């Protein structure tokens, strides 16, 4: 087990105009399950591969277990990696795949056999040991890939989107298995995914990356509730947070946002909070915070518009509403029993505390002085 620390790490490929990874700094505590989350091309896999030693570091410092390992080859970093494609050696049996890394480390054969047996027991691979990877299902291959990492007993486990190739049901099972495994091993794990559900459910902390930079680091619920910018707000949550362009206004110490014809009260912000902003803003509200209210009785923060699409999901229904005054479109997650029809006028109400505010130019969250 070990601490992984990156300090101002850059990665620029030869001939590339911009760095793929730019000034990335974070630390994974001993025994922590950290998730690197972001869209395709955001630099998360490159960051992981730099930690693994499979990519060189252009500048910055990478430490594993207190030792600077920038120039240490992958084989000497004492890490194990689980790949998206599983990377099982196709010409070897499951047992040979598990033992392959140990043989090179000159571990006695009896000890290798014992470790392979133990891991096979943990991951229920006992009956598959003599099979070749081509004779295994996706889930079984995934377990072998995991076993190959565990059997090494490394300081750090690295996962590069290991669940992406599994079907939805198996993904949920394996997700839970991985979390249990982390509890059991107590190992330091760095896990890359583009799936925010995986990140939210598995990570003790998550690092959201965007365009090669760290956008935010924190506990999953903290990041969800207090996104640092509009990107993080959009990226975490399904459906994503509704973001509407708005003009900010103050009257005395009261603050308002005008979205089309709607006037929203910003009870969490004071005039002083908005003083530094550019006057325009992105107002955010999550789909689950919106509720259908009677149009006549609606007071407070209400968005009015016409239903443009209805998506019944069974447990709940998503409705997409075109707002009045060309303010944009919002998605609301409502109870499955709510009866609506297309083009029906509807009013969506929400609590003031459910509002998020981002600067119109920088898209950074505008902090509020009140809780």
């Amino acid at each position, binding site marked *: 087990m070990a601490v992984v620390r990156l300090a101002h790490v850059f990665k620029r490929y030869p001939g590339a105009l911009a760095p793929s990874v730019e000034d990335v700094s974070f630390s994974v505590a001993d025994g922590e399950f950290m998730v690197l989350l972001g869209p395709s091309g955001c630099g998360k896999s490159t960051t992981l591969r730099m930690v693994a030693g499979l990519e060189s570091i252009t500048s910055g410092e990478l430490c594993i277990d207190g030792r600077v390992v920038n120039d240490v080859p*992958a084989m000497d970093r004492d890490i*194990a990696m689980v*790949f998206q*494609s*599983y*990377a099982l*050696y196709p*010409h070897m049996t499951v047992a040979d795949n598990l033992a392959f890394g140990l043989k*090179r480390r000159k571990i006695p054969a009896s000890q290798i056999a014992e470790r392979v047996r133990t891991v096979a027991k943990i991951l229920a691979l006992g009956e598959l040991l003599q099979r070749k990877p081509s004779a295994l299902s996706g889930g079984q291959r995934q377990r072998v890939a995991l076993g190959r990492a565990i059997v090494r007993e490394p300081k750090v486990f690295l996962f590069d989107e290991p669940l992406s190739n599994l079907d939805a049901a198996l993904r949920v099972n394996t997700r839970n298995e991985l979390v249990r495994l982390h509890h059991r091993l107590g190992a330091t794990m760095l896990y890359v995914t583009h799936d925010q559900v995986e990140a939210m459910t598995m990570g003790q902390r998550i690092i959201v990356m965007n365009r090669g930079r760290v956008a935010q680091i924190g506990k999953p619920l903290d990041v969800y509730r207090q996104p640092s910018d509009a990107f993080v707000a959009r990226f975490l949550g399904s459906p994503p947070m509704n973001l509407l362009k708005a003009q900010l206004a103050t009257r005395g110490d009261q603050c308002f946002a005008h979205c089309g014809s709607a006037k929203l009260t910003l009870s969490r912000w004071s005039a002083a909070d908005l003083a530094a902003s550019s006057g325009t803003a992105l107002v955010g509200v999550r789909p689950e915070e919106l509720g259908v209210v009677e149009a006549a009785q609606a007071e407070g923060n209400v968005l009015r518009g016409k239903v443009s699409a209805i998506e019944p999901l069974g447990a709940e229904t998503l409705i997409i509403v075109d707002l009045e005054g060309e303010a944009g479109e919002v998605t609301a997650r409502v109870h499955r029993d709510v009866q609506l029809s297309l083009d029906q006028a509807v009013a969506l109400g929400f609590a003031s505390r459910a509002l998020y505010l981002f600067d119109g130019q920088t898209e950074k969250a505008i902090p509020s002085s009140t809780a």
Partner: protein
Amino acid sequence: MAIIVLYTVYSALPFAWVGTLSLRSTSEISAAHFAWPEVWHWEKFRVAWVDSHFASYFWNSTLVVSAAVAIVTLLGAAAAHGLARYDFPGNRLIYFILFSSIVFPPQILLISLFQVLVGYNLYNSLIGLTLVYVSLQLPLTVYLLEGFFARIPQDLFDAAKIDRYSELAIFFRIVLPVGMPAIATTVILNFIQLWNEFLFAVVLISDDESSTLPVGIRHFMGDYFQDIGMLATGMMIAVLPVVIVYAFFSERLIQGMTAGAVK
């Protein structure tokens, strides 16, 4: 199904015919070209093997072709791995030069190769012929293997690196076994091609003692008399190893031809 049977008969009949010719004397063949052997002249194989030096031709062919195929396979696989896996300056240029050499007919090299071999004292030597065969078959081998090796997922190499395997160990422990279907394909293609090769063998070897099988068979063809019966016997001796090699590698050959992503 009927088409497959028809095609099999169409392909096998000439082979079977040569088979019957190999057991008949030339005078019998002249009398009736397509007749079944009245007397089975098995002794013709002994005559060819012992009296007509086929043992020596066979040994020479085996030596030259085995060595050439082994060298071509190892060098070709190493080169293909290098070209498929490593991004170094000139990678595609080397690949293009190799590839373009496939396009030219090998006959245009004959005179220059002859001069080179004479210059290096390798004319009339099995080593010289082996080296020529290596150079002839290397481009196609690299071309075929590079295409296959490039499809081996990079993750396998990364996993092996993390597992503490050196570049050389990765080549022998991962690339060669994983690429075996493609390697078997090139082995069989090269073996058949070289085993039957006549032009370079007849030009670059003049000693009867160093001749290979295709050249040896020619000895049954005189200016005024062609010993068709012995010619057929010689051909049957020559074709046997090809059949054995094909039978041994055919499954892998098919795998190599139909290989998709390495999973």
